[in-house]
């Protein structure tokens, strides 16, 4: 058997409560000791339209989403019609008796007999939990915990009754469905998605100020910080627009608060002048950019890796920056913490690029090692020469000691004009050149601090799959499947895409039989960047830009073409 993992697909219209039961089921699976990998596919509307909540689950670590379905929880006929073709051998459908299952092996439940209509999703949840072999107490507890936050005790109790009726009904039915194998004993794990982990990483590193304007799929980064803002002493502000958000964050950063903004394509486009200001004024700023397909409004709720070049070139003029691209939910935590520290150290804009797939993807992860994160210490603790302090003192590294306004008698002058060492505007062209050289010298420091691309598999692979950001798991999954067929396949993953150094990867590329760049965009932006920086032309591109995440199957199909 290739895998002990199962794919559960919950399908229905927005407003039917599929995210509720998806989250409760995922949480119960994690509590029971299983791994999960959630893929959410939803339309940009509050009601109606076909949405899915897909949970891949099993006793062992899961790295990539898969395309097949083992348990289809159909809340409407459309879910059956659209996904019956993806059912694997041994798969099972859960549906109301009113729905037509055709040839699919189907457990038709009399929803109306089991519970009132408004608890239909809870009935489906009870049936799914029963088939999967989860304990009734566990799923009931997780449902109550979820609903208890927003429902009255009476409604929570009615949900529990519906859950139990469906659970018990299902237990009396015979199906050919094989429940999950028992979990591997382990300590408790977090159920957390990319957005939440990113926020938590920044908070652990000492984030003190966040400004944002709501935009899918980045909003949950801000909502996570806001939910814990009081407990952690963080100022979070919903700005009037993205331009305000980034300028607020820069004002706060200037005043010494480790600061971030979170946004997506169009919102980030509005921030670009502010990115340039971060570069010129040399104020630390973490920019979390959760990508979705563009141009313009594009596909607001789908995924893409189309904004690497936007992040790389955002802002007029020339100034240094770094761009991280987490491959896992754990990376979202650790790279957000690193990025906040790098912003403080190098005094400028630092990016963390995710996408809708990773942002919304819940995983079961080991609790983060909070003690390993060293919180950022903003600015100088003491200023040696307060009277003679110069904010932009010329240094070999390009980094000028940063005093904070109001925390000493030193006057701190931060300027968007070209400026002298003391921060005041100048049109002295020799000073201009000296200052531009100073700012650009910081790139060497960023380069020295870069994360190396990771390599897996044989050094002399016949096929090397290369990618960046959220596609890591699918690269690994595709490589594992090809390796199982006897091929020598390696994986190279960039969790930092700028600055790049050819010495980190060109030799390995040269030794591979074929190098294939896998990217979630239409033009191969990392491949183009590598060529620009090193002259190395990747032989083949596997690209996806239909709004869906790259899966191992997708990579294999493209390679077979």
């Amino acid at each position: 058997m290739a895998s002990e993992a199962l794919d559960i697909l919950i399908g229905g219209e927005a407003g039917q409560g599929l995210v509720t039961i998806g989250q409760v089921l995922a949480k119960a699976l994690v509590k029971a000791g299983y791994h999960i990998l959630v893929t959410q596919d939803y339309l940009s509307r509050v009601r109606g339209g076909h949405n899915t909540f897909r949970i891949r689950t099993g006793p062992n670590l899961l790295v990539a989403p898969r395309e097949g379905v083992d348990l289809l929880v159909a809340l409407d006929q459309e879910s059956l019609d659209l996904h019956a073709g993806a059912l694997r051998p041994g798969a099972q459908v859960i549906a109301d008796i009113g729905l037509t299952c055709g040839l699919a092996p189907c457990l038709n439940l009399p929803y109306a007999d089991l519970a009132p209509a408004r608890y239909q999703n809870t009935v489906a949840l009870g049936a799914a939990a029963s088939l999967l072999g989860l304990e009734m107490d566990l799923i009931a507890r997780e449902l109550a915990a979820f609903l208890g936050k927003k429902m009255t005790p009476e409604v929570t109790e009615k949900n529990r009754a519906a859950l139990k009726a469906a659970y018990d009904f299902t237990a009396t039915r015979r199906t050919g469905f094989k429940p999950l194998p028992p979990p591997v004993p382990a300590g408790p794990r977090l159920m957390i998605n990319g957005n939440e982990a990113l926020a938590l990483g920044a908070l652990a590193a000492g984030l003190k100020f966040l400004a944002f304007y709501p935009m899918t799929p980045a909003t949950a980064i801000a909502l996570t910080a806001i939910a814990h803002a009081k407990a952690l002493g963080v100022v979070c502000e919903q700005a009037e627009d993205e331009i305000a958000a980034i300028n607020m964050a820069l004002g706060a950063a200037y005043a010494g608060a480790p600061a971030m903004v979170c946004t997506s394509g169009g919102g980030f486009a509005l921030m670009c002048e502010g990115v340039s200001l971060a570069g010129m004024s040399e104020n630390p700023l973490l920019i979390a950019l959760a990508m979705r397909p563009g141009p313009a409004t594009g596909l607001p709720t789908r995924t893409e890796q189309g904004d690497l070049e936007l992040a790389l070139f955002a802002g007029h003029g020339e100034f240094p920056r770094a761009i991280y691209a987490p491959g896992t939910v754990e990376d979202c935590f650790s790279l957000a913490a690193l990025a906040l520290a790098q912003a403080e150290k190098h005094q400028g804009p630092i990016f963390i690029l995710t996408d809708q797939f990773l942002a919304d993807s819940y995983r079961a992860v080991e609790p983060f090692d909070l003690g390993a994160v060293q919180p950022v210490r903003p600015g100088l603790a003491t200023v040696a020469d307060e009277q003679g302090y110069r904010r932009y003192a010329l240094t070999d590294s390009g980094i000028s000691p940063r005093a904070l306004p109001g925390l000493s008698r030193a006057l701190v002058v931060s300027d968007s004009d070209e400026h002298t060492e003391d921060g005041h505007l100048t049109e002295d062209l020799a000073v201009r050149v000296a200052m531009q050289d100073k700012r650009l010298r910081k790139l060497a420091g960023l380069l020295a601090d870069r994360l190396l691309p990771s390599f897996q598999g044989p050094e002399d692979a016949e096929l090397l799959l290369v990618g960046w950001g959220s596609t890591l798991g699918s690269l690994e999954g595709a490589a594992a499947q090809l390796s199982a067929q006897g091929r020598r396949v390696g994986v190279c993953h960039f969790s930092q895409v700028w600055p790049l150094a050819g010495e980190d990867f060109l030799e390995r590329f040269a030794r591979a039989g074929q190098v294939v760049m896998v990217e979630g965009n239409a033009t191969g932006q990392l491949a183009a960047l590598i060529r620009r920086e090193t002259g190395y032309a990747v032989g083949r591109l596997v690209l996806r830009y239909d709004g869906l995440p790259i899966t191992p199957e997708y990579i294999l199909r493209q390679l077979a073409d």
Partner: protein
Amino acid sequence: MATIEDYGDITTAWCPGCGNFNIRQAVKKALVNSGLEPHQVLMVSGIGQAAKMPHYLRCNAFNGLHGRGLPAATGARLANPSLKIICESGDGCNYGEGGNHFLAALRRNIDLTLIVHDNQVYGLTKGQASPTSLEGFVTKAQPEGVWATPFNPLAVAVLHRASLVARGFSGEVEHLAGLIKEALATPGLALVDVFQPCVSFNKVNTFAWYKEHTYLLGAEHDSSDWHAALELTANPGPKFPLGVIYRGSRPGYASHFPVLEQGPLARQGVDQEALRHVMEKFL
């Protein structure tokens, strides 16, 4: 105690006779009269001739982007409650490019002193219409005269019940210094819109024009009377009142953030115990 000299005597790039000189003098006087020292003060500005003010005073300064002085000042205010922050820019910066931020600042009632140099023209870009240019004002960019109605910042500020709404005139330095001093002592947003002649690019709204078209508000005006303030500002002209038009009682925005009672965010660190509790919510 700080003196006028502590705030420097810095050579400027302003035109001779510009109203900015008097406004700078009034700002210095207000700061000194408020007992503030340069390191306690932060001046934030956008871009424009007025926005160069932070470079011509000795104090902390953040000279940001055109139109974006207010958000930067808001961020700084919410990061360090002990700084006394003045956001100072022109009518184009605050009411045009940054119009959305002006509305949001009024809605928040963010604790800042906002000084707007209102010369009813774009100076730095050499003489186009500004949001407060009068209808019919002819420029090279509006050769048939301005067709849009002028923005009314004071009426909008009163409407949103900002903490302080005032208008000064660069020709009345002592009066203006008094307005700014009161603004500095006001929690919440204190708007001081300052009429000033642009000697180079506005040949209509001259020093003499402002003298003729303004009057000092008398004691009969009750600045706590919202309706009276609205009446005073809603139908401006032919003469514009100078003085405190409205004093509001909404709380300053910073008061909604208890964390700021503990001082600057920069020195607060991470509460490891609280952080662990937050992570455990994901278990």
